[in-house]
Each structure stands twice: as C-alpha cells, then as structure tokens.
C-alpha cells in the first residue's frame, strides 16, 4: 500500500490535519485518564494509549480529564503531548501510512525543524484498545504561513494552478491561537528578514475579554469558554444569554497585530499581495482591511495552512515517485 500525502499543523491552540479524503481539527490538549469514563448513553470516549499511558485528546481532554495539558513553549515538539497529538491526528484521519509535511511557528522554525525531521518512523499505539501500527514519514517541515501560499498556488495534485505570485512580493499574516506569524516571499523566494513570529495570538484577545467577563459576572472563565463567547457574541449565565460587546477588544487586538506587521514589514501596502490566514483571520479581516486595503483572505482560513501542507506533500511525493 502506498504512502498517503498528508498535511499536519500541530499548533499551540489547535491541531489541524488534512489527507486527500479528510480534514480534522481539535484543540491541542492532551489529558491523562485513569479507569473507565462513565457515559449515560453507554457511548465510549475515544482514547489513545502510547508508551504505556492512556490519554484523551482535544475536546475530550477538556471534558473528561482531571489534568489536561497544553504546551506553548519552544520545547513543544520534544514533548509527549506533541507526539500524542500527532498520533491522534493520524488516527482521526484513518491513515496508517503517511508522508507528511509539517508546519512550525516562524519564530521557532530554524531551531525546531531538525527535531521534527527526526519524527518519522514506525509508531505503535492503541486507539480504544485496538493496536495501531502506523508508518509516518516527514517529507518536509515548512514555516506555518507558507501552507497558505501552497494552498493558493497548488491544486489537489500538487500542480501549480496560478501564476499570479511570480515576480511579486507576497506577505502572509497568520493569526493563530498563541502566535502571529509573518512571512514574505519575493518572486517565490522566502525572505528571512521579513519573516517573523511573536506571542500575540487570539489568546491575548480572549484574555482581555475574560477580564471584562469576570468583572461583570463575578465568576471565573476558562480561555476555552471565552472562545465560545466570542463565537456566539454572548455569554450564558443562569440559563440566559447575555450579549457581550466585542468591538473594542477586537479593535485593540487588530492594532496590536498591525503594529507587529509594521515593525516587521514597514508599510504593508508596499507589498504586492497581502494575505490574512489562520484561526484569527475571520475575526480580524474587516478591521485590518481598513488599514491594508488590498488585504485578502482565503476560504476556511483556519485550515488553509494544513490544506497547503497536504498539497505540497502530494507534490513532493509525486516528484520522488515520478508519477
């Protein structure tokens, strides 16, 4: 059986994975469980056993684990959590032989790439008690925002379909959960000096909203709860929906992102193309477009990097196997 080209974007906030047939996404959370988990309707909670320990991942870690862990430091890729999230993504994609393109935050890219390249090999683990023997090959590791460029340039066969980025300067603003990453390509060459990352992600916006909510409702909120408030524009307390004003928080956050962009690039209007991507793109697009009129975004920006990694994986695999 051949290798399946996949894209893996194990982010600090969410893990996104794409195969030719599936797209999966879950919070980058891993929880340790002990014993059976009681469910009223007899449903079982999916779990993964790796290296002698049993874990639940994503939303299940939030709901069912006493201790759920999310990691946002530069040792992330060396942690068991990163490995468990990667294996869980393979299990969710239902792929047992994968050739993957991984993404890394721009700020830690050079330092962490050699470690991710060593990630391949045979991985043995259990999903809900059933043994899984997966083969994972790391084809390439790229800075996360590059995925969006591949997503726009390549079709599902990994072939270029658009010539519009040739001879042009292209900037990508990738607003993620804990970081904002920028890259610039000039005539499709990566410009290192203008490609930077900083710890300014959606979590900063959520923190400021959390402070306001906690003051107003005299109770504490987890960051993941505030996420739901932002999605709905309202908070549910005592069985009733209370609208929450987000505009001011969003404007402050957009200004922060814009300052970072200007520090790294100067005036972004000097770039021929500027693309906004990542989990924060839909929230910020309108506000950033006021300052960067030629700003554009992509469809389902939260998945664009992982989609692009997958298309690039197809290209690399086809080149290697000459088909």
């Amino acid at each position, binding site marked *: 059986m051949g290798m399946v080209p996949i894209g893996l974007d194990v982010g600090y906030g969410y893990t996104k994975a794409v195969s030719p*047939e599936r797209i999966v996404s879950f919070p980058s959370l891993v929880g340790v469980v002990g014993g059976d988990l009681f469910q009223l309707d007899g449903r079982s909670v999916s779990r993964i056993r790796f290296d002698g320990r049993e874990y639940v991942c994503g939303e299940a870690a939030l709901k069912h684990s006493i201790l759920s862990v999310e990691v946002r430091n530069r040792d992330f890729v060396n942690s068991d959590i990163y490995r468990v999230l990667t294996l869980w993504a393979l299990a969710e994609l239902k792929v047992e032989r994968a050739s993957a393109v991984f993404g890394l935050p721009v700020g830690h890219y050079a330092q962490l790439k050699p470690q991710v390249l060593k990630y391949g090999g045979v991985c043995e683990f259990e999903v809900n008690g059933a043994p899984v023997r997966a083969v994972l090959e790391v084809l390439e590791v790229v*800075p996360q925002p590059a995925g969006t460029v591949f997503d726009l340039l390549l079709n599902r066969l990994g072939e270029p*379909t658009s010539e519009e980025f*040739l001879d042009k300067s292209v900037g990508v603003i990738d607003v993620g959960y804990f970081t904002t990453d920028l890259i610039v390509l000039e005539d499709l060459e990566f410009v290192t000096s203008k490609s930077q990352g900083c710890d300014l992600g959606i979590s900063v916006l959520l923190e400021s909203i959390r402070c306001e909510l906690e003051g107003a409702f005299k109770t504490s909120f987890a960051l993941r709860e505030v996420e739901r408030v932002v999605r709905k524009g309202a908070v549910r307390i005592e069985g009733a929906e209370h609208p929450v004003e987000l505009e001011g928080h969003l404007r402050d956050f957009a200004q922060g992102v814009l300052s970072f962009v200007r520090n790294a690039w100067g005036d972004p209007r000097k770039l021929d193309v500027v693309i906004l991507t990542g989990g924060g793109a839909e929230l910020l697009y309108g506000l950033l477009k006021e300052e960067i009129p030629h700003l554009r975004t992509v469809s389902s920006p939260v998945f664009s990097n992982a989609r692009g990694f997958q298309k690039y994986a197809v290209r690399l695999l086809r080149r290697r196997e000459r088909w």
Partner: protein
Amino acid sequence: MVKVISLKLNPEYEWDRVILKWLERIPPGERSAMIKYFLWRTITGESLEGSRSSSSGLGLEEKRDEVSERLSRKLDSLKF
C-alpha cells in the same frame, strides 16, 4: 494482487459525464483517491492544462508553458 475495474460506455451518452459519475461511485480509499484525481483532471481539464486548451494561438501556449515551468522550478527550489 491486481484489481481490475471495468466500465461499459454507451456511445449515445456523453462519455465524460458517465465516467465522472462512475468515478464518484468509487468508494473512498487511500491510493484510489489519487487515481480518481488524475482521471478527474484529465476529463475536466482542471489545472493549467485546462486553461491552456481554451487559449488560441501557439505563441500564447508556449508562453504559458514557459511561465508554468518557471513556476514549477521556483516551487521545487523553494528553501525556508
């Protein structure tokens, strides 16, 4: 193990459309997806080949080939 798949085509119908419908019925699988994309691309003319066939004039086609090759070279030599 070699698996053989066969398809009967009635020339009175639009063959391309029949093939596409047939492709849609192939159950999902790992490699079969890639084969499907290939056949789909050939029939629908998705990607650069598709836009090429709609253009007239040899000069324009050659120019497109050049641009496409340059783009491919750039992509394949991309370093981060």
